[in-house]
């Protein structure tokens, strides 16, 4: 045999490497709660063979996939199962006729811009029974779902007014991709990051331009728009990384995963040249501490019992250890590490009326674990997990960065880092 033949078997997303061991199906949160979804193996590599024969073999059940990527984490053969499913959805034209609901849910930044302006009204209105009734019946957004509150001031506005000017004074610098949630709903998380990084001697800078990362657009099939936004983000990240040699930090695991891995896999936007310079803040900070480049000093009187939940995309990146180990550095923090189970929300998925029951069924195990852990709060790196856990358990959920910032003895830390 010619020595260049059959050395390895290559196929798009490695679908041929599947040995049908079915481990992926055993970890699929959707397959665990419904028989309507055939599971990742069948929906992915198995179905792909039939779709290659005739695209009409596309199965509508693929819309039930959360894109949580737990199948890919479990796969011993390196098959990009969830990517196969996403691609199939894309090829089948899901999203070409996206409903008003899907378009609205997917456009987190557009919705945020409008909602910011009328934040007090929007927050009240979104919580009103008639609004919920109308959304439930006219737009199929489930009425039992709690909408995240909108902030009156955008993070970007706050940053320009109160922080931007001081950043150049620090000896080191990073970029910050804040994402829609920080910008429109919860600027405090961004402020916490600035506080933390500044104390460690790092100035924080925004990208010249930032668009929504597009994770919700992909989930709702708005691929064209997602591709446009990916192009803008990739260009601006490149300016920061290649131009200024900044690392681009994030505080949302889903945004991070999207920027690093979904851009090339789903949106054909090759970000391999800057991929290693995009990372969650906790990973960046952990490494600095570990390499003794910075010191974090925490308040002596900080006492809390908190449970850490690993978001699905966090697990896919394998980065939960950074957040967990950082939190463990806080002397007064009693940290409970939860079993890795999906919370069921998966971004906009759980907001949809047809998914609500399934979404809550998927999360049930996690909610029970949280209840049993007897904690005062939960920590996770994903904002949509936060909404789901807050709504379903009644406990407050905080990003590890916020907990670190709260527990930080700012003056002592600044001093220790020579700021």
């Amino acid at each position, binding site marked *: 045999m010619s020595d260049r033949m059959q050395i390895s078997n290559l196929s798009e997303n490695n679908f041929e490497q599947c040995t049908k061991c079915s481990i992926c199906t055993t970890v699929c949160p959707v397959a665990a709660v419904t028989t309507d979804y055939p599971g990742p193996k069948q929906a992915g590599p198995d179905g792909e063979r*039939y779709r290659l024969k*005739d695209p009409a073999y*596309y199965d509508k059940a693929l819309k039930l996939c959360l894109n949580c990527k737990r199948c890919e984490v479990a796969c011993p053969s390196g098959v990009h199962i969830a990517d196969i499913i996403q691609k199939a959805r894309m090829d089948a034209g899901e999203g070409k006729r996206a409903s008003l609901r899907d378009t609205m849910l997917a456009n987190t930044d557009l919705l945020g811009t409008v909602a910011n302006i009328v934040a007090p009204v929007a927050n009240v209105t979104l919580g009103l029974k008639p609004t919920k009734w109308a959304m439930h019946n006219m737009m199929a957004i489930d009425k039992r779902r709690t909408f995240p509150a909108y902030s009156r001031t955008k993070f970007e506005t706050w940053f320009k007014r109160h922080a931007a000017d001081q950043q150049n004074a620090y000896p080191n610098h990073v970029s910050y991709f804040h994402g829609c949630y920080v910008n429109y709903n919860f600027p405090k998380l961004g402020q916490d990051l600035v506080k933390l990084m500044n104390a460690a001697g790092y100035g924080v800078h925004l990208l010249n331009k930032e668009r929504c990362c597009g994770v919700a657009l992909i989930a709702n099939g708005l691929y064209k728009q997602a591709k446009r936004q990916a192009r803008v983000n990739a260009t601006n990240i490149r300016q920061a990384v290649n131009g200024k040699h900044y690392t681009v930090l994030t505080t949302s695991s889903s945004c991070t995963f999207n920027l690093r891995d979904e851009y090339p896999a789903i949106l054909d936007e090759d970000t391999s040249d800057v991929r290693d310079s995009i990372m969650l803040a906790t990973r960046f900070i952990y490494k600095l501490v570990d390499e003794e480049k910075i010191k974090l000093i925490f308040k002596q009187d900080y006492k809390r019992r908190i449970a850490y939940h690993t978001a699905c995309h966090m697990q896919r990146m394998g980065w939960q250890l950074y957040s967990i180990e950082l939190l463990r550095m806080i002397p007064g923090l009693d940290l409970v590490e939860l079993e890795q189970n999906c919370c069921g929300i998966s971004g906009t998925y759980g907001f949809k009326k047809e998914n609500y029951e399934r979404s809550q069924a998927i999360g049930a195990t996690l909610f029970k674990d949280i209840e049993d852990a007897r904690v005062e709060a939960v920590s996770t790196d994903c904002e949509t997990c936060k909404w789901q856990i807050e709504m379903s358990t009644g406990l407050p959920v905080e990003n590890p960065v916020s907990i670190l910032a709260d527990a930080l003895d700012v003056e002592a830390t600044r001093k220790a880092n020579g700021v």
Partner: protein
Amino acid sequence: MVTNEVYKKEYDVIIVGGGATGAGTARDCALRGLNVLLVERNDYSTGATGRNHGLMHSGARYAVTDGESASECISENMILRRIARHCVEETDGLFITLPEDDLDYQRTFVEACQRAGIRADVIDPDEARRIEPAVNPALIGAVRVPDAAIDPFRLTVANLLDARMHGAETLNYHEVEGVIVNQNRVEGLKLLNKLNGEHVEVRGRVIVNAAGIWGQRIAQMAGVNISMFPARGALLIFGHRVNNMVINRCRKPANADILVPDDTVCVIGTTSDRIPIETVDDMRVTREEVDVLLKEGVKIAPSLATTRIIRAYAGVRPLVASDNDPSGRSISRGIVCLDHAQRDGLEGFITITGGKMMTYRLMGEIATNAVCAKLGNTAPCVTASRPLPGSEEDGPRESDATKRYSFGERAAIGRHGSLAARIEKDNDIDNALVCECEGVTVGEIKYAVHQLHVHNLVNLRRRTRVGMGTCQGKLCSCRAASLMGEFRHDVKGAQEDLAAFLDERWKGMRPVAWGDTLREAQLTAAIYEGLCGLDMAVNIEGKEDVQ
């Protein structure tokens, strides 16, 4: 189960051989009102019928060398599109010229096609790359012809079903042990029922020898001599489709010059080697054959170099020797029908041989004409216009892939056509997938076991595609074995059957056992032998297929 009634009946015609030709002859005879029995020593379609490319020739391949076969092919090709719709995928085919080939041959080829009545459109290489992205991009010429893909297992079963609907009896696992000759007349057959070891005799007014390459032995038993010319061909199955059109090399027929998309896979073939008649039951594929197929295959579609191969297999062309060409290719694929009364003075014995799987219907027609002439039957042949069961005009089509059908239902319609309506699907159990690679449901297994003469898992595979996917039976075989054990109230038998099935799957994987296919096989062995303690080295009399 076979009752003694079946053996005792007096038949007008007994057909030996359950391949496409035998099945087609049985159908034709039954439709003309004859009393028919068909006997097959193994399962249906285990000979050359089930061991070819699954290519529905347009005839273009034979146009230059054998105009008569080419004309037969295109005529049957058009007929099969109508009568066997659910067995055919109308893919069309390309004949490509590569830089190493002579482009002048293209003109010779196109002219020969036109003479044979085969549409052959010369298209631009750019157009060829556009309509079939898998094609070698270096091509310098392309001709589009009406080639298609056909499933020979389905085709054979559909013919048998129609024969049975018209009163025919069909017996698989009944091997001919002797031909009963009284003076100069053949009167019946001595059979061994391989399922229970019983020896029986059946009587018929005419015996049709449609046993393919094994027809030489049957003729010997009747005391007449036919010289068969066994030409062996090996093929490789790839794990998924790389092409959606048949791709041929536009040159004189040679090794590995056709790539056919068959259902969920694609198949490259064939080699061609003359073999002694004594070795026709040895279907092992050699390393040299695999190497030739790969080396030539990548010239047609370069991606084959990195596409996983799931299986290798070989078949034997049942040609009748007519000259000394060692390749077997310049011999006419022409149909040979021998009336041994005229030829050898032996009454009541007809041999139908030569031809090709895709001219099976015409072979059936010719053989039935000869039978009818002997019996004084004047009914006309209707097989060219009457759709096979499953292919009725108003039946559902696989391409009607709408929300109305689930994945499994759609795959079943692809396999059984309108007969898929007989598959139970009213509850979750019936709709549960047994074979996930190929979309076979519990309901489909029930249908096959109860209505399509299934005695073991290998039979089940031929009727449904269970175990034909990437995992080669790893997940589906134990589920299917469990269902079979339940239907037949025989757990031990099901266990042995499972071992035999996995062993049969491994035989086809072995010549290509490297990379992911080897990993696959190792995982299968780890599960069944290691974890479950299944002894895979068993060989069960009567359940084992030829090979």
